[in-house]
């Protein structure tokens, strides 16, 4: 099994992208009013937390943030008996009339975001939903697009794009793994 890893973004690059995204969120939404950040489990949680801190550093106020687990809304659950582990969803505030910024690490087929939106609608009626992702790697299977993108990364379907974060992996970097599977 060949395993050629390419680091396409290092720790500094990630930090600069997140800083830019934080400013873009504030610019597009003309401030923090009614804004909430929802991180999609698992990678999105830490990115949402980092964005929350950066926004707080800029505006002096913290936007509320929550965690969303989309497992139960996935469209591929009935495919196998292998049930993915369900994580906790924790949204401690109402979403009614809020501006929700969904945060995820990699935007790929778009199915996770579709599931996330279905979940959010069950929680309430947001005024609007925006999407912030660190990496957009293309290959959309649904008409979904991100409002805020850290880096556009054209990739091939044989590649695996992995966002590693210090909080869970001990290092900050975005890696492309191209392995030929047996």
């Amino acid at each position, binding site marked *: 099994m060949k395993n050629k890893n390419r680091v396409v973004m290092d720790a500094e690059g990630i930090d600069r992208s997140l800083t830019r995204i934080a400013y873009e969120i504030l610019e597009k939404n003309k401030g923090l009013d009614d804004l909430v950040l929802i991180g999609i489990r698992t990678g999105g949680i830490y990115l949402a937390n980092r964005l929350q801190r950066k926004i707080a550093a800029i505006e002096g106020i913290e936007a509320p943030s929550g965690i969303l687990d989309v497992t139960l809304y996935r469209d591929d659950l009935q495919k196998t008996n292998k049930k993915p*582990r369900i994580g906790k969803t924790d949204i401690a505030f109402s979403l009614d009339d809020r501006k929700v910024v969904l945060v995820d690490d990699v935007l790929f087929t778009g199915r996770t975001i579709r599931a996330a939106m279905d979940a959010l609608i069950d929680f309430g009626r947001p005024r609007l939903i925006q999407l912030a992702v660190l990496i957009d790697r293309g290959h959309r299977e649904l008409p979904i697009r991100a409002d805020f993108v850290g880096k556009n990364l054209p990739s091939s379907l044989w590649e695996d794009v992995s966002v590693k974060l210090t909080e869970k992996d001990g290092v900050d970097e975005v890696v492309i793994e191209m392995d030929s599977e047996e």
Partner: protein
Amino acid sequence: MILERKDILGIKELSKDEILLILDTADSFIEISTREIKKVPTLRGKTVINLFYEASTRTRTSFEIAGKRLSADTINISASTSSVVKGETLLDTARNLEAMNPDVIVIRHSAAGAPHMLAGMVRQSIINAGDGAHEHPTQALLDMMTIRAKKGRLENLNVAIVGDIAHSRVARSNIYGLKKMGAQVAVAGPATMIPRDIEQMGVSVHSSLDEAIKEVDVIMMLRIQIERQHQNIFPSLREYAQRFCLSKKNISLAKKDVLVMHPGPINRGVEISPDIADGPYSVILDQVTNGVAVRMALLYLLTGGKA
């Protein structure tokens, strides 16, 4: 995460890992019941049939809500209103249901072994909601979930189960489960209600409530059926209550942070005094809440396409 089973018929055959998987999955379902929209689309289009040969409000409602919160179509069949009254055998009922292609059949029956018979006959997943005096796996799972949530663990806890052990499926399932998870179990009741050779299940046996609940972490009171009085199993409810009712008089024998549990429905003043049932030690209502989560977890883990 795989539950490599077609059916959930009892705790006896589950491994410790399987029990942990079910409890952990149940934990993540608790939150759904607190939302405004208490529904996730996970089991959309799946059919769950609740086939209840014994009357039950609590368990059946719990299974029905569990199925509906997962967006499944749930159907309730109670024996008294169905073709069973016309004399249809269990097997024929099962085959007829199988022909309508449900995904899960939940069965409660007064004869031990009925779910096993069904599981061997139909291809659907069977969940045992209680078979005679044999097992009630979902009750034991929700009991363990409740204890774990309050105590943080199950290992090395001392649990006392009190009441008509001989006729109790709740007792048997809990004994299997708690012992597998590393707890110590004691049973207590009038000698006529202790089944033969139960020590061989690894439990200590007591004929007095006070002895059994000394320094325990959890007390599980079981329901007394009035009919047993006519079988000379005990002389009167009055005498039973005098000897085995959990109340302010004896609760202090247990640990200060003891949990008081009961599978319900409670005979107030017979098994538990009202102030204990409604008091700070009681987690009886938590059991009910956790029951929905456990049943959702099982429906989630058992359904799914075959790879």
